[in-house]
């Protein structure tokens, strides 16, 4: 960050970016960047699902959002510790985040099914065509990954600059 020292506009844009996505965002390990990125993937997934309902090309977008979330999590994990195995703190965060992601997805799915039952006569949406079922399935997997990534980033304390030093 601050690569354009002296240029006021660039410096202000840099500060704005740091305020939005957190320090150390440039090396990909900022928890806040992870939260922002996964919220974007979630929004893209929802847009894809809606497009699919309108009989457009949505399922590819939903797949893209799911794939982006999983790729993002792999890259962040690799940037954090290279090829070293996760230690006890990282394992605990991973399992907690996965449990939150899976639990939240199940809760949302069961809530939707319950409301689907209540409002079935009013024509509440449910997957009908093959593409819609595929998109709904991909959306659920993506949702689980995105919520897990957000939970994982939320539970990871902010990386202080000195903690990234090798010393």
């Amino acid at each position: 960050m601050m690569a354009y020292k002296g240029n006021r506009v660039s410096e202000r844009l840099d500060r704005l970016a740091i305020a939005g996505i957190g320090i150390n965002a440039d090396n990909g390990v900022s928890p806040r960047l992870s939260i922002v990125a996964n919220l974007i993937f979630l929004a893209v997934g929802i847009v894809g699902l809606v497009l699919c309902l309108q009989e457009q090309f949505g399922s590819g977008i939903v797949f893209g959002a799911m794939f982006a979330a999983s790729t993002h999590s792999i890259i962040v994990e690799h940037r954090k510790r290279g090829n070293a195995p996760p230690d006890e703190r990282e394992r605990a965060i991973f399992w907690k985040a996965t449990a939150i992601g899976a639990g939240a997805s199940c809760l949302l799915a069961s809530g939707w099914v319950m409301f689907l039952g209540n409002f079935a006569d009013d024509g509440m949406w449910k997957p009908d065509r093959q593409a819609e079922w595929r998109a709904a399935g991909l959306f659920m997997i993506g949702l689980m990954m995105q919520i897990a990534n957000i939970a994982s980033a939320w539970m990871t304390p902010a990386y202080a600059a000195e903690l990234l030093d090798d010393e």
Partner: protein
Amino acid sequence: MTREIHNRIAMFRADAGMTRRELAEAVGVNPQTIGFLERGDYKPSLELAMSLAEVFGVNVELLFAFEPFPSLSQALQKGRE
């Protein structure tokens, strides 16, 4: 029940002349975890706490406590009295 756990890992590490990376390798964790431990952002497992104490050659209660540790100046002052 969540109680705050204080530690003096940073002090013992500085005293031993070790970097975070060296200490992390000695106990088998990520250097970031050592940083989070020193900052009080993470509570270690009993196994990790005992491994850290073993590296420094002290009892675990010298490294971790529920009550805040006195500062070095306070400890020196107490020693003079």
